[in-house]
């Protein structure tokens, strides 16, 4: 069966996709290996298992308990972050960490130890997980929490779904006064300006920058800087979700080229002004702007696209980020979701957590074969040289060398891996 990850690249076949409906049922017996699969929002091949089985977890979307006085929520692992927020936000609770889409399951958020625009304050998703149950292929079920199963707990967070099936998890939510955000946006002139704005915005819960990746020379690093806080105005009735648009089919691959992206970038940047623009936005609009367009990945056409998210240590970050942006601008390749953020000092909660102190840059490139892969390899070299890392959830092609340099403790995860679990990504990078 053919299953695509969010980047539509690579395209691989699976022996079977088995939907799971009840958390207490035994794992299916399969020949070959299996991998839990939620909404397949990972961009590359970390959510694929070529030739093997995928365990589809979306049917495991039940709440188990939600204590509205303490904010502790226990749910099955196929529940999405969007479903949790829809239940919790109206009663004054919020997930402490969310990525840029709400279409992520709890299991996926744990397996990738996802981060968000508030990493500098809250760390990663895994830091707010209290416990979970792991179903292993030998029939055992292990309740993992830091005091009782510290090693397996840490290996499963950011463990890429390889340590077994997470059936349910218990999360700590945080109090909010309102489901709205107070958002401030300004134009960013260049890379130096980004670091200055980050410093000046340290008191904001959320901050992130969008970069015009086609800008070169003195304009390199220009874009928009966006910072935000949960609004303190008391909870309103939830704003109705706007109409959801959808990309009905793959656009021709040629639609995204440097001219169209250049135009988009100019228009997008024009939304910002010199000073700070203040807006009051529902959480979904601020946190998950692209969720409003179903299948936005089809914009890249049939060949799909690849993401490249790196983190480099803070000391010489300006230099390294500049080198990456220069290489991309020079190639003339059209990245238009280019995002820059400074990570906080908190260590990731998992063995293979991607976030670490430093600066992270995410960009996406239409997949154009060898030329794209060569460019990405050059970017990897810059990151390796800096002592940085590449994010597995976004990756479809990094070399085993780059992976090992990024995650020196990968062999510990290999030891905790369930022998019946594997992924295309894992086989590729541990070759």
């Amino acid at each position, binding site marked *: 069966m053919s299953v695509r990850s969010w980047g539509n690249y690579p395209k691989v076949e699976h022996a079977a996709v*088995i*939907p799971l*409906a*009840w*958390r*207490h049922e035994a794992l299916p017996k399969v020949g070959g290996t299996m991998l839990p699969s939620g909404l397949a929002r990972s961009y590359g091949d970390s959510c694929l298992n070529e030739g093997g089985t995928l365990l589809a977890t979306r*049917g495991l979307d*039940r*709440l*188990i*308990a*939600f204590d*509205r006085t303490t904010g502790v929520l226990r749910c099955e692992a196929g529940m999405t972050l969007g479903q949790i927020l829809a*239940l919790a936000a109206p*009663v004054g609770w919020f997930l402490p960490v969310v990525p840029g889409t709400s279409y992520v399951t709890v299991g996926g958020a744990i397996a990738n130890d996802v981060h968000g625009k508030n990493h500098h304050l809250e760390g990663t998703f895994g830091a707010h997980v209290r416990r979970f149950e792991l179903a292993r292929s030998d029939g055992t079920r292990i309740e993992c929490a830091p005091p009782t199963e510290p090693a397996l707990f840490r290996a499963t967070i950011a463990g890429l779904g390889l340590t077994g099936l997470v059936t349910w998890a218990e999360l700590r939510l945080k109090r909010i006064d309102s489901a709205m955000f107070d958002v401030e946006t300004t134009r960013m002139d260049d890379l130096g300006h980004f670091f200055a704005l980050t410093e000046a915005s340290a008191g904001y819960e959320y901050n992130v920058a969008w970069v015009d990746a086609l800008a070169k020379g003195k304009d390199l690093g220009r874009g928009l800087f966006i910072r935000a806080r949960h609004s303190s105005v008391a909870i309103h009735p939830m704003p109705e979700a706007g109409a959801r648009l959808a990309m009905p089919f793959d656009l021709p691959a040629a639609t995204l080229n440097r001219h169209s992206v250049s135009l988009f970038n100019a228009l997008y940047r024009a939304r910002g002004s010199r000073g700070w623009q203040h807006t009051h936005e529902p959480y979904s609009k601020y946190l998950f702007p692209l969720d409003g367009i179903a299948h936005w990945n089809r914009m890249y056409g049939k060949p799909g696209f690849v993401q490249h998210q790196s983190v480099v240590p803070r000391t010489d970050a300006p230099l390294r980020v500049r080198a990456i942006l220069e290489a991309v601008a020079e190639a003339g390749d059209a990245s238009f979701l280019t995002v820059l953020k400074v990570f906080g000092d908190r260590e990731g909660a998992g063995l293979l957590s991607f976030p670490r102190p430093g600066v992270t840059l995410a960009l996406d490139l239409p997949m154009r074969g060898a030329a794209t892969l060569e460019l990405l390899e050059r970017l990897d070299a810059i990151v390796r040289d800096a002592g940085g890392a590449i994010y597995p959830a976004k990756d479809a092609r990094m070399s085993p060398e780059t992976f090992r340099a990024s995650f020196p403790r990968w062999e510990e995860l290999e030891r905790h891996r369930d022998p019946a679990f594997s992924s295309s990504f894992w086989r590729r990078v541990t070759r």
Partner: protein
Amino acid sequence: MSLQRVAIFGATSAIAQAVARQLAAKGVRLHLVGRDPAKLEAVRADIAARGSAGVSVTLADLDETARHAALVEEAEQSLGGAMDAALIAQGTLPDQVACEHDFALAEREILTNFVAPASLATHLANRFAPRGTGRIVAISSVAGDRGRASNYVYGSAKGGLSIFLSGLRARLNATGVGVVTVKPGFVDTPMTAAFKKGLLWAAPEKIAKGIVSAMEHGGAEVYLPWFWWPIMFAIRHLPEAIFVRLKI
């Protein structure tokens, strides 16, 4: 009608769960009946944690029709009053080929998909009729509109149920009690996990929305999604000589 108390029979089916969630979100008090203790508990906890006005359960195998009178009685006791609506949702998808070779198997499937729902509907009707209120909503299927070679054991049970409900609706017409026959098309649930999905498939949430609306506003025969009405109209009116030659 604003619903306050609803009972769901066969509460662990994917469609029933989706209905229960939507009702819980509206603040409806629910009573759930199901056969498998672990599944029923998972559904109960989910509904309770969603902040429902209250949820109670009874474990029962609905094939045991002798228990139905007591189950209906217990549902109203647990709900703390007369129910506004009941959903009859239990059902199985038989292995057609196996049923062709073993009629004992076919008989059990007909019991589950026709006899048991008809029995429940009768007990509910007899309870609702004297007070002149309440809605009985039962899940039949588009498969009951015509017998197909690939699926006629299931189809005949559902078809029997549709006709039974049609008669019950006529019997209760003057009393104010409503009987709604819900006919879903292809629904993406664990029951149909093995099928290849296409454009005609719908999510259980979408079917549930139609069911909740039928509980609130009534109706007679409701095709879900609506586009199955013209499709089944065409299929019902195909001459038998042509129909028997179709590979469907």
